[in-house]
């Protein structure tokens, strides 16, 4: 069915842009648009690392896991999604908005935690979150305290970040990711540096937000237990390429995400070995 531009304009005027973020109105039906759509994204570095021809979609309400060994290209892809890195080719759409062309619009309802990004260590936890909060004009003043409470950092809010352990910093970054009441959250290696209690708290928080508030997550990790507990669907990234994709319902009785991951990695290795031999 062809999109009626005039009707869309009228609906936009009536419902406002926020209501249009995750669905495009078609004549006679409402069709859900993927929250994240990655189309043929390639990003290559001079050292040969990067990602090649990546395509996948993340639908509303899903917890999507991007799984892969260290150096598979997970962080590169995550950085491309939030425009910290520019893809060599391909398109990334968040809620239908091209990230490279309409960055502000695309990131309006997105929360991010990217591995390697640091908070300002000469400021307190509270001040760091306030810096971020100022960039979301509609946010309530109490929101900073609320997210600090969620991640168990309320008692440390007046302490400078330079005195924090890696785990405390990671909790703060998670709070920063959830600050804007996002409908879509991008988490890159979110449990790095967290202790067992921290990891359990994290899993509970993500599950609650997904179930109760319908928040969509993309989670990049190399830790299978997080994926096993949280994700509805996973994609396996190895040496910059997607080598497998499966939903929880598609798993057979004896299969887990872990066994699927191991099969994919082994198969990918075997394919590479054959290719090497052929050379």
């Amino acid at each position, binding site marked *: 069915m062809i999109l009626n531009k005039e009707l869309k304009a009228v609906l936009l005027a009536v419902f406002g842009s926020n209501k249009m973020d995750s669905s495009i109105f078609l004549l006679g039906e409402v069709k859900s648009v993927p929250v994240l759509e990655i189309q043929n994204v390639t990003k290559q570095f001079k050292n040969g690392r990067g990602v090649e021809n990546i395509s996948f979609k993340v639908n509303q309400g899903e917890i999507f896991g991007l799984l892969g060994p260290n150096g598979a290209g997970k962080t590169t892809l995550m950085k491309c999604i939030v425009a910290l890195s520019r893809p060599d080719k391909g398109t990334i759409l968040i809620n239908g908005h091209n990230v490279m062309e309409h960055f502000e*619009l695309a990131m309006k309802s997105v929360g991010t935690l990217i591995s390697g990004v640091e908070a300002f260590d*000469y400021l307190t936890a509270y001040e760091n979150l306030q810096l971020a909060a100022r960039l979301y004009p509609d946010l309530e003043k109490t929101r900073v305290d609320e997210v600090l409470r969620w991640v168990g950092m309320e008692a440390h809010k007046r302490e400078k970040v330079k005195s924090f352990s890696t785990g405390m910093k990671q909790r703060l970054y998670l709070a920063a990711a959830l600050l804007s009441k996002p409908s879509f959250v991008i988490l890159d290696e979110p449990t790095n540096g967290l202790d067992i209690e921290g990891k359990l708290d994290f899993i509970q928080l993500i599950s609650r937000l997904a179930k109760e508030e319908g928040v969509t997550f993309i989670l990049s990790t190399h830790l299978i237990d997080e994926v096993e507990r949280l994700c509805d669907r996973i994609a396996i990234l190895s040496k910059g390429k997607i080598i497998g994709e499966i939903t929880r319902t598609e798993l057979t009785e004896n299969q887990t995400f872990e066994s699927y991951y191991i099969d994919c990695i082994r198969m990918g290795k075997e394919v590479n070995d054959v290719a090497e031999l052929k050379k």
Partner: protein
Amino acid sequence: MQNLKNEWIKLTRKRSTIVLLIITAIFPLLAGPLVQMLQNRFGFTAFDGESFPLVILSLAITFYLPLLLAFVISDMFAGEQEQKNLPFLLVRPISRYHLFNSKILCTGIYLFILLIIICITSLITGAIWLENFTFHGLMLGVTAYILSWFPLMAIGVLLVFLVQWIGSSSKALTFSILLYLVMIVLTYLFPTVAQWLPAYDNDWYQRWMNSGFNVVNLGRGVYLLSWFAMFFTLGFNKFNQKEF
């Protein structure tokens, strides 16, 4: 301009910024009694209340303020990149143009405040310690300090553009200082070449005060504005292409 407040908070929460602001305020206050003591001791009058703020400005604009400017700019761009802080705000719904713009604006405000602090303290010192402090001298001083903001900002945007290539604040600061020294040396050794550089306009306020509103000063103003626009654009272009 929601990020301007962020940049200002980041700048003023640093201990170095506060220390430098205090030094900026103290220097003219100490220089006044020292000059008076020396003048009394040797029995001559080199500076009076009217010329003292301009002497302080001449020193500040040639050495002190460009150094502070280089310090702030190195930290704001190369420093934040080095510490991996820049992406903390870049992943929010703010365009790189607005972020870059707010950093430049914050630098401009900081520079203006530094100039005002030196202006006020040198005027106070001139009024208290030195003879011949007049209303004419006060107005002259205030005008000179305000006019000096323009050539300093032109140097500032050049530094902003150049530090985009450097990934460490200490290297960026060293490079900026060396570059500024080269510009100053060129001003004395090759005045015709130096005319193309903004450091040539360190005494811009003197030219305005000597000859007032004329075609030459106006032309030089347009040149500084063009310089600012060119390096702002080039600096933003490089900043926009950066990957983190």
